[in-house]
């Protein structure tokens, strides 16, 4: 029997980036907020101190900071004709857990989506015709929010993180050295771009020779010390090369820990509870209002936390599952195309090109999570797609996140994976190789969705989430085209040889790709095509807000965190300015 707790104004389900942002915003507005995090407390000095942070085995391969799937995982399959089986070990994506969650072990790649990315259906249909957006069983749609509406909130996140970079478009004027394709920024980046190491520099030169437009990757790895508007101080990055998949011991990577938590925890109207997992959202009898959440802690005790507002701020896969487990919204049915919860699950379409030199020492171990020179010439609709047979694109990054030797030894085409030949290739190429990352969009498609698994259950007896996903033909064509464009730059770097790692075959759960899962609680302009409105408010239960990349109707060719954060800030602004005065739907259906 659950113990009833004292009511609060808002309960946050999960305490990573969006939980910390919403906690800060709502507490500053005077609300009583409690955050429930199912993982442990984590802090820099205790959990990833510089004396032991650079541990590839423990953090990357033994998943020390990632979600432990031993008592709760999801099931996976490529299509509805297969039987979904459990993802028994993390691989393709590395789910976060604990305070800060993925915000602890992300790279710090801070992107804004293109203005046209928010108009995937209408823009592409207008330019390329109806079939361009409906072919290959695609189910893309417009977001119901525009870049211009989000810009002030992207700016808020940049200021929070101290994002290092160079603007390419300031208030409509193209700036030298930045990304000329980006949407207009109101302000320059808070800190200048990171100096680039040798590999990214060679990439930038080669790309410029080909007429592309290279620029430094916008990053939450600090190029210099920075104090954010909440008074949190970040130090300059030391390029240790243990950033993505690791916690930063140097307070140099923007994370909830380094930008918000010290400020938020001092507020008397905020409480954080760790090792507390929300089991379901409780509703009134007419199912139009949430009364709070029921959770269980690691001691096995169950509680009911009443709340005026429920903010789902866990990872996308958990948010969608909680909606399904709580019976909120109509589950999506791929056969009929009806229902919305779980609809339009999408991912990221990744490929890479390795470059090998004889005569250049690249020192790959000097790296940072978002240390890269990038071209955006072939992302979104930055190029003419007529005759190409696909929509979408990718950024191409000459990137060095580090030279961690278990994960990141590149060997030439045809090298065996073991034996003397492999060892010799590793010894010869480690210091002299480099990788271009092709970070592609993923268009939603009719057969890709999330629902509850009929067979497998978690430690609490709840059905696991079932993921049905494969890359569409649109995305394969996009990825092939983009990999060829990357190969052109790679060749222009004048290496000894290159190796293309194309995106081939069905989605495979084992090799790491990205932790950029999207959709399932998508946003839109009406309840028939979406779960939430543009303020991330549920159409069906207006005192529940669903944060995160679940709101993406399809995924753009960028890392999602910048957009996830901007959407959260926009939601918070609407809650503060409108919802608190008059609780109810922020958009009339």
């Amino acid at each position, binding site marked *: 029997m659950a113990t009833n707790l004292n009511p609060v104004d808002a309960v946050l389900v999960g305490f990573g980036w969006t939980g910390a942002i919403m906690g800060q915003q709502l507490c500053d507005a005077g609300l009583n907020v409690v955050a429930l995090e199912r993982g442990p407390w984590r802090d820099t000095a205790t959990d990833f101190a510089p004396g032991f942070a650079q541990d*590839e085995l423990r953090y990357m391969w033994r998943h020390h900071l990632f979600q432990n799937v*031993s008592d709760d995982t999801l099931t996976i399959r490529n299509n509805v004709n297969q039987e979904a089986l459990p993802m028994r070990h993390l691989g393709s994506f590395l789910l976060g857990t604990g305070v800060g969650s993925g915000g602890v072990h992300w790279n710090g790649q801070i992107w804004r989506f293109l203005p046209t990315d928010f108009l995937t259906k209408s823009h592409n249909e207008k330019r390329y015709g109806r079939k361009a957006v409906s072919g290959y069983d695609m189910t893309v749609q417009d977001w119901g929010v525009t870049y211009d509406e989000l810009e002030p909130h992207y700016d808020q996140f940049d200021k929070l993180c101290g994002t290092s970079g160079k603007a390419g478009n300031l208030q409509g004027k193209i700036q030298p050295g930045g990304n000329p394709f980006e949407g207009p920024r109101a302000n320059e980046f808070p800190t200048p771009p990171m100096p680039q190491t040798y590999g990214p*520099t060679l990439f930038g030169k080669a790309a410029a020779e080909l007429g592309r437009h290279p620029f430094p990757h916008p990053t939450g790895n600090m190029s210099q010390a920075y104090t954010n508007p909440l008074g949190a101080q970040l130090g300059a990055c030391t390029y240790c090369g243990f950033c993505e998949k690791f916690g930063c011991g140097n307070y140099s990577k923007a994370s909830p820990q380094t930008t918000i938590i010290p400020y938020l925890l001092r507020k008397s109207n905020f409480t954080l509870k760790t090792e507390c997992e929300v089991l379901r959202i409780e509703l009134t009898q007419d199912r139009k209002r949430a009364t709070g959440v029921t959770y269980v802690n690691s001691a096995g005790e169950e509680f009911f936390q009443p709340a005026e507002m429920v903010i789902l701020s866990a990872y996308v896969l958990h948010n969608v599952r909680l909606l399904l487990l709580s019976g909120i919204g109509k589950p999506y049915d791929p056969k009929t195309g009806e229902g919305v919860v779980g609809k339009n699950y999408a991912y990221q379409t990744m490929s890479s090109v390795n470059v090998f030199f004889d005569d250049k020492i690249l020192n790959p171990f000097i790296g940072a999570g978002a240390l890269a020179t990038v071209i955006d010439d072939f992302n979104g609709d930055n190029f003419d797609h007529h005759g190409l047979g696909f929509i979408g694109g990718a950024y191409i990054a000459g990137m060095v996140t580090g030279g961690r030797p278990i994960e990141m030894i590149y060997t030439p085409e045809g090298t065996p994976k073991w034996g003397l030949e492999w060892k010799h290739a590793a010894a010869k190429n*480690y210091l002299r190789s480099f990788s271009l990352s092709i970070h592609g969009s993923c268009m939603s498609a009719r057969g890709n969705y999330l629902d509850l698994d009929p067979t497998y259950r978690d430690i609490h007896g709840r059905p696991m989430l079932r993921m049905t996903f494969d890359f569409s033909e649109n995305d394969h064509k996009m990825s092939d085209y983009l990999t060829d464009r990357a190969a052109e730059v790679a060749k222009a770097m004048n290496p000894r040889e290159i190796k293309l790692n194309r995106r081939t075959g069905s989605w495979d759960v084992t090799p790491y790709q990205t932790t950029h899962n999207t959709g399932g609680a998508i946003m839109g302009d009406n309840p028939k095509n979406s779960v939430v409105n543009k303020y991330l408010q549920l159409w069906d239960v207006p005192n529940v807000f669903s944060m995160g990349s679940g709101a993406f109707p399809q995924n753009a060719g960028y890392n999602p965190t910048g957009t996830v954060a901007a959407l959260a800030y926009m939601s918070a602004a609407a809650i503060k300015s409108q919802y608190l005065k008059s609780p109810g739907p922020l958009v009339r259906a």
Partner: protein
Amino acid sequence: MVSKVNLQRRQLLVGGVAVGVAGAAAATTAVHDGELGAPPRTIRGSVPWQEGAADSPPAVSGSGYVYFTPVEAVFIEAAAARLIPNDEVGPGAVEANVPFFLDRQLAGPFGRGDHYYLGGPWPKGTPQQGYQSRFNPAQLYRAAIAAIDQYVSANLGAGSFARLAAQDQDKFLKQLESGDLKLGGGVDGKAFFAMLLQNTREGYFSDPIYGGNKDMAAWKMIGFPGAHYNYKDWVSRHGERVPFPTVGFKGRPGWTEA
């Protein structure tokens, strides 16, 4: 089934730290699991801070094998020597102490499958669905080694894998890798090979506190300088060799010489 697997795992975790009061133990021990099994906490007012508390890595100790039987050790040493052979370019897996690393990994949380979901049912999956064995890694090694030696003695005219000539060992491992060779005892030979190769590389290239990468020789071979904290002065020195000596978490030999 699901809860039973996890109950066992939690008992192992708790057993390892001699818990009195669960809350007090987690707050005072320097090493904790960091993931599951910690007590619930309510945090208000400030960032919690405790002097000396650190989630420092679990270094291995001792010598000799604690998980592998003598027969298994013979297989592991033979296979490791083929996966990464020794020569003048750099150490082989055996010379880098990888078999010892593997033994300690399998004897610990990894071997118990602490980050694997092992609940049933266990139908055979597609290649894209990844690891689908009922075995945890330690069980998989045990079952696979027995199945391999049995296969070799039944089909290849040698008493065990270790007794095959080096080139026949390579041929066998390639067939295991490709999935062409089917082992008995319900063992997925391809899954085992993938795990063995991955774990061998881990032992070869991870920090020496885990028992492999002896003398950091594998890092020295490729030119990785180890657990350095700051390369700022070298970011813009393009094309130069960074002259830092190789270090691990426990430093390097020069630090501790008399």
